[in-house]
């Protein structure tokens, strides 16, 4: 294992970030780079402040879609995983489909979802996010439900525990960390998918739409401000689910 001092691990990325920002600002100013090529960090920050209300509105829309998609996809994924863990044929049948869903661009379904649910509502975007969330949550939860350590399995048998008792005492708590890992992975996918879905149509709100229209009007600093908003949104989702995952797995890492 490589040993790095704790301060180095924390300081190094911060230093890098500051250096990059400073270089960026310097280059833009020194080389008189036009804003339509690359705006300076300061102008982006300024635009962000000025357009904050619009950015916030976009965050609420895209974030709301991502959240709804996350909830729907997670619930569906967990239920499906439970069924697949109990009913072998379901698992076998769904395996190729889920594997395919993991590699095909789900966002490609956006246009038809807008047709099916209407392009004046957010439902299509929420469903895209839900589909993207379903796959990692399903796969991770299923893996968690399947892995029971043999010694725990023997223990339950030695106690003549009923299947339900064994599930409650060993399988479910053991699967929980896997579930939360799946949620953490899914949270970023939810935001990304909700945003990409906006590129394919639907109502004229959301961060993705705002970025495209700002770029179309050559207001690049504003476009970057919306990008900054979407980065913040992604980070918030990630950090919350990361915290939930850490909380759920704090005692489960030990080989006991």
């Amino acid at each position, binding site marked *: 294992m490589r040993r790095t001092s704790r301060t180095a691990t924390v300081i190094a990325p911060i230093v890098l970030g500051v250096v990059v920002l400073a270089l960026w600002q310097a280059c833009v100013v020194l080389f008189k780079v036009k804003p339509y090529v690359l705006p300076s960090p300061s102008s982006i920050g300024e635009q962000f402040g000025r357009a904050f209300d619009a950015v916030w509105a976009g965050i609420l829309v895209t974030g709301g879609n991502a959240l709804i998609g996350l909830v729907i996809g997670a619930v569906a994924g967990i239920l499906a995983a439970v069924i697949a863990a109990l009913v072998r044929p379901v698992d076998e049948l769904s395996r190729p489909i889920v594997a395919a869903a993991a590699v095909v661009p789900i966002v490609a379904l956006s246009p038809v979802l807008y047709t099916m649910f209407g392009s004046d509502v957010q439902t299509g975007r929420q469903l895209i996010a839900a589909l993207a969330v379903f796959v990692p949550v399903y796969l991770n939860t299923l893996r968690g439900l399947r892995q029971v*350590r043999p*010694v*725990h399995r*023997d*223990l339950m*048998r*030695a*106690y*003549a*525990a009923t299947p339900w*008792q064994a599930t409650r*005492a*060993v399988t479910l*708590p*053991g699967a*929980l960390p896997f579930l939360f890992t799946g949620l953490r992975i899914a949270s970023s996918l939810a935001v990304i998918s909700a945003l990409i879905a906006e590129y394919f149509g639907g109502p004229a709100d959301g961060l993705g739409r705002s970025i495209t229209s700002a770029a179309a009007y050559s207001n690049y600093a504003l476009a970057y401000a919306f990008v900054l908003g979407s980065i913040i949104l992604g980070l918030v989702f990630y950090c919350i689910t990361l915290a939930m995952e850490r909380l759920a797995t704090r*005692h*489960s*890492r*030990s*080989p*006991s």
Partner: protein
Amino acid sequence: MSDAVRVSGVSKLFGTERKGTVAALDGIELTVAPGEFVSLIGPSGCGKSTLLRLIADLDQPTSGTVSVFGKTARQARIDQDYGIAFQQAGLLPWRTVGGNVELPLELHGVGGPARRRRTAELLDLVGLSDFADRYPDQLSGGMQQRVAIARALAESPELLLMDEPFGALDEMTRERMQNELVSICAETGAAVVFVTHSIPEAVFLSDRVAVMSPRPGRIRTILPVRLGSAGDRDEDLRETGEFFAAVSAVREALHGMPAGDGLRGLDLR
């Protein structure tokens, strides 16, 4: 009072696609009297863990019978007549130490206050009362095993089945655990079937040592080694002449196994 364990004419065959049939056990005859401590010792592959699993009804014999307190192994398991400790402590990482010891009591419908009382008793017995609210990942290997033993004793079973419970511990901790186990068995008066690959451990703990040989797994011989009553056995015992003599006797019994196999997995000292 019927025997604690009676194994009669038991064989266990495992079939794999690649290796064909493996005779893990063949023609096993073993009787354990109530309150008796019997060790199973032998090189890797002699079937000692398999035999223990058959007694625990974690597996079924291919032929022969296993009876525990006069009942079938299955019935004994359903009636929860034994407590079991595995080589890995097998503690549930999401439960506290107290929660782990309570587990069998919980599963078998013992009420809250009674559970807590019994758990406190047991933790006191193994010297871990201060750790009731800790989690397994905060404990050392030795402590985890003590919790596992406390858990095995939770329902005051008259038979304890232990599969190399001290195998993963260092030598000093191991000897300490052996001392503790001897005193616990003296107090509870339970019969014990103890799997080990350490000759000194078997000799220190047991009333009788069953020496097993591999391929197919058979009991070669059973040696009486009772070195004083359980209450008399303490650290100094390991230095006495009788102890060394008994260790030599067991070692002798283990020798004369087919030379090609060697005595893999044995602590010969």
